[in-house]
């Protein structure tokens, strides 16, 4: 054993000291770790939510283009501009409008909107649970 390995006064002092951990340290550490994992999971869900929103925007763009090409939007604009004629002939105008709307895009947008709404609600609910647990900023 060299001189460096022999215990000195400080080593003997630490060996004699009784060190007790703060109360509830393990629980607090576990809670903090759980909160961090939840936060990362929520971030991943948020990324998925944003991607779904981008898809929604793209589908809306395609719906606009398809509605213009099919004549649905020009007909709707004409009916709004000439509302007297629209009031006189509501049934044929309405039937023509319904026939011209690109319903496949409307369906896709509706499904996407439902998905985004559900996902956003779930994310905010979980964030609420995180906030209520009081783990945000509770550093000691």
């Amino acid at each position, binding site marked *: 054993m060299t001189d460096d390995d022999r215990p000195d006064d400080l080593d003997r002092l630490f060996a004699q000291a009784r060190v007790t951990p703060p109360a509830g340290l393990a629980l607090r550490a576990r809670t903090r770790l759980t909160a961090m994992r939840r936060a990362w999971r929520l971030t991943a869900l948020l990324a998925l939510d944003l991607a779904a929103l981008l898809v929604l925007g793209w589908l809306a763009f395609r719906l606009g283009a398809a509605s213009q090409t099919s004549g649905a939007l020009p007909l709707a604009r004409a009916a709004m501009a000439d509302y*007297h004629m629209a009031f006189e002939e509501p049934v044929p105008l309405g039937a*023509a409008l319904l026939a011209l709307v690109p319903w496949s895009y409307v369906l896709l947008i509706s499904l996407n909107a439902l998905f985004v709404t559900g996902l956003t609600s779930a994310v905010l609910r979980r964030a609420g649970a995180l906030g209520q647990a009081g783990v945000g900023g509770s550093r000691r």
Partner: protein
Amino acid sequence: MSERLVALWSWLGVHRLLAGWAAALAGLALCGGGIALGASGAEDGAFAGPPAVAGAVTGPATSPPGRVEAVVIARRPRGYLARTRAGDLVLIRVDARTRFRALGRAADATAVQRNTVVVVQGAPGARAGVFRARVVAVRRGATEASATASE
């Protein structure tokens, strides 16, 4: 980084009502903006191609008097409800004396269906928005119009 994320999500959790409304408004803005942007970049498929009637692009007011180009929206008891290239609604009145033409040959009223593009020769009626047709010429059939619209 993790600590900041926890703090951020905790803050969002406390203000989730505000965050929810912001998300809803963002979704609505994205939808509306997307539709407007898509529509602005596309053409009216019903009238694809150059106008058959000179001046028909700007509407019946500047078309040669007595002629209008329109796409048929619906059949009516005494004619057709149609939309001009300029976006005006017009009631085309036909009677027993009205002549129909399709593909350069004489035809009958069955040649005119919904989504058919027609060039109508006649005169404006006494009431605004009514056009009394002497000749109705089919410029493009309904099936061709649908094929162009679906492209």
